[in-house]
């Protein structure tokens, strides 16, 4: 078992990131002058109006596409810079909104997939560790089930286990719990916090749900409408470990209220701007 916490890694630094894409011949700025830091092992939750470019930012960190200006650093390494070939790497694993488990593989095979294709370890060793991670996620009974046989909450847990299997420096979660019902969601939040307490990996978490954002995050980055840049960074000073009891504390409610005010202000501006654009 490699030592995970001996040296903290996974600090992200975004410095004046710009990303444009062309849509119907016109160039659209998705991200413009976006700068903020995420400390190693922190949970950074990003919220903002729909379609503001949060996912574009996440995809850039993941290495699915490049950026047009600025830099993104992971620890001392430059991840993204203009003119640089984007590079996906097992140190940054993405968990998608609708889930992306391989339907033809059992849970165990899904979780063990990364180390096996990379031939980093022997198969038996990979399966053993995958079984451990799945057991930690409360899925010891479902090792040989196919994803299609499980609830969406359980599938998401498998997916996070698969990501953790890579010992990533950063876990990139793109609205992972969006499709879940409220009950499952609250269970998933506690499960994620539990996993994070055990393996403090940096988490970059996109959501629309402010209650979720404040409950999970060390910092909540509230984005402006397109182009996306931080409007405000909210430090969440609620101590860890956090349990559901946090949800009824005044500080929690205060922070959610603050975030809500910022987001609704931004959403209204975006709406008005959109309206004007539409009528111009």
């Amino acid at each position, binding site marked *: 078992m490699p030592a995970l916490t001996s040296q903290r890694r996974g600090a992200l630094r975004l410095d004046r990131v710009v990303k444009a894409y062309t849509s119907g011949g016109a160039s659209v700025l998705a991200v413009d002058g976006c700068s903020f830091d995420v400390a190693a092992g922190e949970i950074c939750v990003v919220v903002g109006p729909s379609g503001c470019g949060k996912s574009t930012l996440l995809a850039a960190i*993941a*290495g*699915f596409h490049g950026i047009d200006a600025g830099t993104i650093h992971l620890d001392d390494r430059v991840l993204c810079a203009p003119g640089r070939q984007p590079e*996906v*790497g*097992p140190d*940054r*694993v*993405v968990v*998608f909104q*609708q889930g*992306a488990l*391989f*339907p*033809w*593989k*059992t849970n*165990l095979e899904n979780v063990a*997939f*990364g180390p096996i*294709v*990379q031939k980093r370890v022997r*198969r*038996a060793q990979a*399966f*053993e560790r995958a*079984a451990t991670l799945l057991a930690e996620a409360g899925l010891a009974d479902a*090792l*040989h089930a*196919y*994803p*299609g*046989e499980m609830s969406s909450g359980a599938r998401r847990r498998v997916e996070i286990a*698969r990501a953790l299997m*890579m010992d990533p420096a950063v876990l990139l979660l793109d609205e992972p719990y969006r499709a879940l019902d409220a009950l499952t969601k609250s269970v998933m939040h506690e499960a994620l916090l539990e996993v994070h307490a055990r393996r403090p990996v940096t988490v970059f978490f996109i959501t629309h749900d402010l209650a979720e954002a404040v409950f999970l995050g060390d910092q909540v980055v509230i984005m402006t409408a397109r182009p996306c840049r931080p409007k405000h960074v909210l430090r969440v000073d609620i101590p860890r470990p956090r349990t559901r009891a946090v949800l009824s504390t005044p500080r929690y409610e205060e922070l959610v209220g603050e975030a809500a005010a910022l987001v609704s202000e931004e959403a209204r501006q975006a709406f008005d701007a959109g309206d004007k654009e539409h009528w111009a």
Partner: protein
Amino acid sequence: MTELAAAPERRWSIGNLEQRVQRWFWRRSRRRAALSLSLVLFIWQFGATSAGWLGYRLPWLGQLPPPADVLVAWLDLALEPSYWLSWLASGARVAMGFAAALSIGVPFGLLLADFAWFRGVAHPVFELLRPVPPLAWVPAAIIFWPTQELSIAFVIFLGAFYPIVINVLGGARELDVRLLQTARSLGASRWQILRRLLWPAVLPSLAVGMEVGIGITWEVVVAAEMISGGGSGGAAAAGGGLGFLIWSSYVGGSYPQIVVGMASIGLAGYASSALLRWVGTRLTPWRESDT
């Protein structure tokens, strides 16, 4: 802990075979099938013997040999080895053509799906040739190939080739981009993506393609045998196959035998589709829960 890799046995055992057969037989859908089949037989018998019952022949049905005569003809034929050789001949042709279609069609479909340059080169030709019905190839096939057997096999191959390729291609196109991105970010190489992502993603639609393909194969083999005169066996009918059996029965004026030939092909097609469906579900165990 090495056994972790192996999923627990999902196979059925011989032990509960009898139970399974009984359950299969008594399912509601089976009873319905039995009912509809006997109803068809009854109407057929009634219509075919209408000259005796009603004093005049019902149109269409009145022309048919009654099922009882067909059964007698069938029993007669079943005692002759030539009948079973016909099964063998047609079955062997179908198997050969289908195997060729599978072993060429699957790699071809995967190449089309995975390599843009190959798709650019090969797809137009493929799409141009696809609408040409396999039977339109019969004369050309006879000219191309040295033996009649090979010409028939070639035409059968064409019948199964197109649906297999189309379905492999379609299945590959449905592969979710997020699965690709995930596999890449988990460190899979290009070859691993082909083998571990594209291939399993294609299997369900390949199973459909095989089922469609085998059906067309039987349509084609019969027609090809009629046209080509049944290959080497000729009038002896042994090497002629089921298609030639029908044709020679027609020429010889033995109408019950025509129906025997038709029913034999129906059975053969049904059996081969069932076999391929079974293979298909074996190949895609993760879909068991869907059905």
